[in-house]
């Protein structure tokens, strides 16, 4: 009887695909014979205030729930199902917008452009996960972020990544964060949104290129758990920093670690710090010398990065619409045999004087020059700090989550045989 029920459920699930096809066909495509008129393009209306409050409330509740599940209940299953809910709500229902990751750009723009008023809901999406992280670790990543949830779902055969891969790709989120802030601060573009790999899936409208990108991420996510979160997510950088100072953080064991090593391979994100008891074989003085050298080199990295960033400012500014338009207007002969670029068409209809276009573009370039310096300095600093961080060792006797890197997913909890007041049975 039970078997029949299960078969029935799956027949229904499979038939869903065809129902969906039927659903699309019910609405005929525009027919050129029927006098079909193109609908007027309208600006989508802002999300109703009440719904925005609901979104923020759901976010806060989800964060609270996951934090409770992680810290109190220590339930991986609970976290998993909350993440499924988050994927459904923030991903498919809310279509991935507003998301906390993209909110970085809104906040940046609001800081640099006084005419931009940031919606409170967006601000809440930016701040709430950070606040919760400061208190409870990255519980947002664990079960609230739809991006993380989607990648978590497909993480079937996670492998421990090679330390070389971690080293090479570990810089990427910082560079991405720097670029996102630069482009948002200059009012050029919201690149996090433009290159959001999952929003096209949430909205069923991904471009072919983005589909390939997101497909690659998801397929690689089968073997390398959460590749976007670890090697791209710019918000993860902020959460990583905040989580290092978290008031209470997930612990692998609720009590004293018994050094059973069961949890050693449990983390697909390589976020468990193994006990380090032995002294560094290369000797303290050698390490100290290296540390001093790196510390002395950090200012050099900063200046070099800044100089390089400033040299690349025109290349970076190519993304900006005003600069792009000015370039086209400066070199009309290049576009003579091509259809008129749409920027030029729009500009013509604006009737704006050329001087203003050039002045604006020159102003943007100057901002990019400053921004290029700052971006380069930031990357140089990050590089120096990461290198220095690899020279510092925190000796410990227990297996502990790395507070910065740990997503608080609570996988490791299931592996720990220790209970608060004794030993629990590890369920298969």
């Amino acid at each position, binding site marked *: 009887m039970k078997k029949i029920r299960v078969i029935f459920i799956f027949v229904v699930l499979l038939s869903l695909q065809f129902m969906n096809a039927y659903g699309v066909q019910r609405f005929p495509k525009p027919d050129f014979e029927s006098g079909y008129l193109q609908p007027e393009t309208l600006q989508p209306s802002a999300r109703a205030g009440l719904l925005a409050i609901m979104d923020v409330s759901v976010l806060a509740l989800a964060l609270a729930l996951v934090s409770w599940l992680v810290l109190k209940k220590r339930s991986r299953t609970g976290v998993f199902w909350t993440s499924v809910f988050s994927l459904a709500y923030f991903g498919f229902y809310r279509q991935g917008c507003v998301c906390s990751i993209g909110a970085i750009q809104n906040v940046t723009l609001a800081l640099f452009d006084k005419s931009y008023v940031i919606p409170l809901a967006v601000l809440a999406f930016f701040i709430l996960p950070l606040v919760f992280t400061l208190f409870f670790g990255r519980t947002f990543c664990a079960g609230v972020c739809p991006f993380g949830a989607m990648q978590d779902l497909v993480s*079937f055969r996670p492998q421990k990544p090679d330390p070389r891969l971690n080293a090479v790709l570990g810089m990427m989120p910082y560079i991405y964060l720097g670029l996102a802030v630069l482009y948002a601060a200059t009012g050029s573009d919201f690149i996090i949104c433009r290159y959001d790999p999952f929003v096209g899936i949430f909205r069923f409208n991904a471009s072919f290129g983005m589909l390939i990108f997101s497909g690659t991420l998801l397929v690689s996510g089968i073997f390398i758990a959460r590749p976007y979160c670890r090697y791209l997510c710019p918000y993860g950088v902020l959460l990583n920093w905040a989580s290092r100072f978290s008031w209470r953080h997930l612990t692998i064991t609720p009590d004293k670690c018994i050094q059973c090593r069961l949890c*050693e391979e449990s983390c697909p994100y390589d976020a468990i710090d193994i006990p380090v008891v032995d002294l560094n074989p290369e000797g303290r003085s050698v390490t100290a010398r290296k540390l001093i050298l790196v510390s002395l080199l950090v200012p050099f990295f900063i200046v070099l990065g800044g100089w390089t960033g400033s040299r690349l400012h*025109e290349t970076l500014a190519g993304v900006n619409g005003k600069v792009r338009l000015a370039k086209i207007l400066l070199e009309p002969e290049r576009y003579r045999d091509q259809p008129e670029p749409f920027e030029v068409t729009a500009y013509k209809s604006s009737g*704006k004087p050329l*001087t203003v276009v*050039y002045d604006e573009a*020159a102003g943007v370039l100057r901002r990019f020059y400053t921004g290029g310096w700052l971006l380069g300095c930031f990357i140089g600093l990050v590089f120096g700090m990461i*290198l220095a961080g690899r020279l510092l060792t925190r000796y410990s006797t227990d297996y502990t989550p790395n507070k910065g890197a740990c997503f608080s997913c609570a996988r490791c909890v299931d592996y720990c045989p220790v209970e608060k007041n004794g030993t629990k049975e590890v369920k298969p």
Partner: protein
Amino acid sequence: MMKNNHDTGHRGLFRTVALISAVFAMVMCVLIVVNYIQVKRTDPLNTPVMKALVERLQGNPGDDQLRQQIRELDLLARKAFFTTQWQVRMGGYLLFFSLLIAVICLKYLEMREKPVPEAPQGEKTDFWNDRNINRSWVAYTGIGIVVLALVLGTLTHLELGKRLEPAGLLMGGNNATFNAGNANNAGNADNADSGKRRVAVAVVTEGYPSAQEINANFASFRGPGGDGIALKQNTPTSWDGKGMKNILWKTEVPLPGFNSPIIWNDRVFLTGASETTREVYCFDLNSGKIIWKFPVDKIQGTPAKAPVVNKETGQCAPTMTTDGRRVYAIFANGDLIALDMDGKKVWAKNLGLPANHYGHSSSLVMYHDLLIIQYDQRGAGCVMALSGKTGEVAWKTSRNVRISWASPILVNTGSRMELILVADPLVASYNPADGKELWKMECISGEVGPSVAYADGVVFSVNDYAKLAAVEIGDPPKLLWEDNEYLSDIPSPLATGKYLFLATSYGTVVCYDARKGTKYWVHEYDTPIYASPILANGKVYLLDKKGVMHIVKADQTYAVVGEPQLGEGSVCTPAFASGRIVIRGDKSLFCIGKP
């Protein structure tokens, strides 16, 4: 035992469903990619068959059957195209749901088949070794980034900034909009003047005015750069010269002249001359009082006798120019003088009596601190640039042209500044910085009086008994269209991105589509028009010889805004200040504006 069997059965079922869904997803994936490539390759409206049919139809326009066949084929192609797109979209849905099912099944299996945690066999992870590898690779990554950055940083040419800053500076007033088709925007510079727009202007070179200053004034014939566009707002549309309604002041000009006034800040400049006397006047824009006048005499090389000139040209037809540091004037006898803003002579010279049977009339224009003079005379045409500060020749370019009475204009083409001149037989462009010829096109003939118009990369030249030509600039330039129905011999044409306005000396005004040359409207006035039309605040100001200002909307339909009268005849082109118009009548200088 029974339970275990059931469990195993469930897992098998889930595994099978997951497998089927995954295979189905892969098939869908392949199909979507193939379909996508098909869509990308397809250009349904430009198939060879379609092109062949269209060509056949062009050869036989009356073939209705062929026309119908093209329509059917077109519809079929569109349907096929959209169907393919629909298939891609549908495939996307199917792919998503099949993947979803596969994921659900696999998750179920993962939960059911969770392995019992096991302690790793063998030695613990070698922390220090891993740490060293990681640290080394962090360093390698850093070095890689540094090398890449150094290479990029060194190889990057910072050109755009260098080009943008001067472009902003050089813009001047002319061509203030890349496409002045939206004529209402001609007044934007007023906003810019008072606004915070200046970026490039912040680094003004001491020797010449900024674009902002140039736009804010009316420093040469037909406004900034000489293209007939006054970047002003609140321009008056109603006045009555006889009744002194909206006439702020009226001052008699001591000596006659057909040159037009120019304006710099609160001063108006013009010249007057008779056969024996030549004078430069400076009027107060606010009161109309003559602040100073300067007699132009005792210049070395001045011919003892004034040249014989046509009475419609006079001894001082060329309009003055200024860079805000000095004012410059030229007369029919070749006298050229630079005065400071207080009327003191800076330098003066005679360029030699021009061999010009009607009298020299080309107006002056400034490029940076260079005074540019078109000196096309019989057998020795040239264009030259003199240092505004010293009068020394900066460059001089000979021109193989006949005498011209037109004036040079300075335009910014978007990529560079061009000095455009017209004379029988050609329209030619020069680099105003060094006088090198950039391009030329033979498209005009006769005794050329009207200067060229320019907008949106197209130059318009016209002359009576010749033709009206629209030339797209470039090397080589391209003739866009030409017409010879309405031609002008005195007023210069006025171009916006969309329209070309042509006034003729017999009183007809025509509005053309600037790109195609089709006429939007033609209106005949009873009175001749000698003054060149000026575009200001979205309106075209056409002053006829009787002093009636015909103000029409710069639009493709003829719409009169007003027809106020000066109360005195005029052949001079008006000058515009903010909220004011200065018009030189036959005898007096008028300032129009609301009191």
